């Protein structure tokens, strides 16, 4: 061994890509940049901006921005999150986990509403509106009166009912000792197994066309053989059934689809593409395309040129239903007006969307919608 210990040590250090000294990469973050991105509010209130909001303002802001999913009273529509109620339900068979019944910290409400809500239009609520919504949610959970105003100063004095309902993971004490025992390998049962639950009886799994669970692996042999495995004797007739399905490779699915797309390619493709992007603001509530169904809002296949409020099985607000009943049509003019200012066009509409202020965005989304037809 001719190498000195120092050289060996140096070689070892080189082999491990550990950074001992800073590399001088990156640049200092500017205060404005940190302020823009770091809006986090900690459980002790650190990070709360100056501001305030009262319950009644919060009720209005909530109705405008949140109620289309969470309900006017924060009760949750369809399967959207329930935000109020559920007190004392945490040991029930169906617990209702709300801000009042489950959430430990009010800071989480402010923090989440301010940077992640409304769904599909995040980071559009002002500081005061966020305080107001938070105040309204306290009110809807019966935690404050309707004359309450939430401020940065009184924020930390509000404790949520379930503040002490959480404890740190204790599996290392409560579970690991129980489950770290050498398991039984033979004669482990006292009686033969008996089926107690069958998923097939619930019938909630997505299915392929043949009724099997979606994604079931196709047979590796031809249909004629699959039939044979069930009952056929070795001397099965040689003729294959005429209706035997053709092999997957022969199915000409792609050309047919392409032809259909070409038939409909009337709108400016660039505009349609831009519209597809704009439509993301709408997609949380509205569906288009194959298998589009009504959601929070109606499915929009074929909406351009169609009578207002005419999607089947959708419960429209009164103003839109009235417009439809009086012969209103969704043409370019009415769509522009509605999309620019939904509540101005139809006061009382359920569509909780502030509107598309840029005409080019409206043009694009209308072009995009015009590419979807009803079946």
């Amino acid at each position: 061994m001719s190498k000195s210990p120092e050289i060996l040590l140096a070689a070892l250090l080189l082999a491990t890509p550990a950074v001992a000294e800073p590399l001088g990469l990156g640049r200092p973050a500017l205060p404005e940049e940190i302020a823009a991105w770091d809006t986090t509010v900690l459980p002790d209130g650190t990070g709360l901006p100056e501001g305030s909001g009262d319950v009644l303002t919060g009720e209005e802001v909530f109705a405008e921005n949140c109620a289309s999913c969470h309900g006017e009273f924060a009760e949750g529509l369809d399967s959207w999150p329930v935000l109020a109620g559920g007190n004392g339900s945490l040991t029930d068979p169906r617990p209702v986990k709300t801000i009042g019944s489950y959430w430990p910290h009010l800071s989480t409400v402010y923090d989440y509403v301010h940077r992640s809500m409304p769904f599909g239009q995040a980071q559009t609520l002002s500081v005061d509106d966020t305080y107001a919504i938070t105040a309204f949610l306290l009110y809807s959970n019966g935690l404050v009166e309707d004359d309450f105003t939430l401020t940065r100063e009184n924020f930390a004095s509000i404790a949520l009912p379930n503040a002490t309902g959480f404890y740190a993971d204790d599996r290392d004490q409560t579970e690991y000792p129980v489950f770290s025992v050498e398991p039984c390998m033979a004669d482990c049962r006292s009686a033969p197994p008996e089926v107690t639950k069958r998923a097939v009886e619930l019938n909630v799994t997505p299915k392929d066309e043949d009724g099997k669970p979606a994604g079931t692996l196709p047979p590796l042999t031809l249909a004629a053989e699959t039939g044979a495995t069930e009952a056929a004797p070795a001397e099965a007739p040689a003729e294959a059934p005429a209706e035997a399905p053709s092999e997957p490779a022969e199915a000409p699915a792609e050309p047919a689809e392409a032809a259909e797309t070409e038939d409909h390619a009337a709108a400016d493709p660039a505009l349609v593409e831009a519209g597809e992007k704009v439509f993301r603001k709408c997609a949380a509530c509205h569906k288009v395309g194959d298998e589009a169904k009504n959601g929070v809002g109606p499915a929009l296949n074929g909406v351009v040129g169609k009578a207002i409020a005419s999607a089947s099985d959708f419960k429209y607000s009164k103003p839109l239903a009235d417009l439809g009943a009086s012969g209103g049509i969704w043409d370019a003019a009415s769509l522009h007006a509605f999309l620019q200012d939904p509540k101005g066009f139809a006061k009382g509409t359920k569509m909780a969307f502030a509107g598309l202020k840029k005409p080019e965005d409206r043009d694009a989304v209308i072009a995009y919608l015009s590419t979807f037809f009803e079946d």
Partner: protein
Amino acid sequence: MTDEPKTSRRAFLAGTAAAGAGLVATAATAQTPDPLITEVQEWASVFGDPVDATPYGMPIEFESHVVRRNVEWLTESTASSINFTPIHALEGTITPQGCAFERHHSGAITLSKQDYRLMINGLVDKPLVFTFEDLLRFPRQISIAFCECAANGGMEWGGAQLEGCQFTQGMIHNMEYTGVMLRDLLAEAGVKPEGKWVYVEGADASSNGRSIPLEKALDDVMVAFFANGEALRKEHGYPVRLVVPGWEGNMWVKWLRRISVYDQAVESREETSKYTDLMPDGRARKWTWVLDAKSVITQPSPQAPIRHGAGPLVITGLAWSGNGKITRVDISTDGGNSWTPARITGEARSKALTRFHYDMTWDGSEMFIMSRAVDETGYVQPTKQALREIRGVNNVYHNNGIQVWWVRADGEVENVEIA
């Protein structure tokens, strides 16, 4: 091909199939020569696709069923939803990115490397902003890790519900990541002594954020930008995501934009209202980050029935543990009365998917097949019932109970629970 050879081909196959229908496997015997062999097939005579026919290749059309699948009734909006990896159709341990499950809270965003910025702030000496190019100048590491949603198996708490391991255990993938260690980025900014927690946040509209204790952040957490040798896919956080080996998928923040050091946990929505485990006494466990040892038989399973009849049968599946390496996987074919160790095929890596195989002779009668993982800490995967006895049925998350498949005599497979 003309119709004629096809007919004789079917006749040949019908002849061989009967052998498999008996209780005891016998060697297949051909009654007529197989035209696939005796006749010159089209593919053996003319050109196939030229190079560049698909500059970036997709699986051949015969594999079109091997895709991620959504269960529509689970969520109100596909922008905040999950789909499932087709683990019943995959082999080995590495999950192709294109069929690895997706979980978005506000959709998969389009963020370019040029527009990418990563901020480190909070209790650090120097708050910093990195570009994507900056990240490429830190020393790189490679790590293979499974990413499992904490809710994987969550629909099965109350009982067998979905037909297929894609749906019951498919909120998981396993990739080889290349990136830089979070500890190196933190060292660049300098963590102050009072810093105890690292909060990580995404750039998408949900700005999903989670608190990670500093100890874990300095251990094996990676800021990754390659997966399986290529750039991350958009749906997995292109251009940069966090890799938190062994810990629940929600912490693997995608489109990572901010790392902030605090003296306390942020207690964000995703670590209070969600991803906490409600216990029977009405209190809830929080900070249940680690994913305990788990396994599932991927074949046979409801979406992968046995079609070849009695005789030699390969049972295979996946095992994993957030606490280290898998050391053993036991198989039972009689509903848990007797167990036999399966083969661990290939290397068992810490906090990564491990493949097992069990080669047996099936007598054609019904079976209740189960797998049971053991990890290097000695932890043995429990039954679902054993978990329920501690946690009740409203836990939602971290269901690592043993899966039972009921193999019927006709080879069809059901998701069941047994007593």
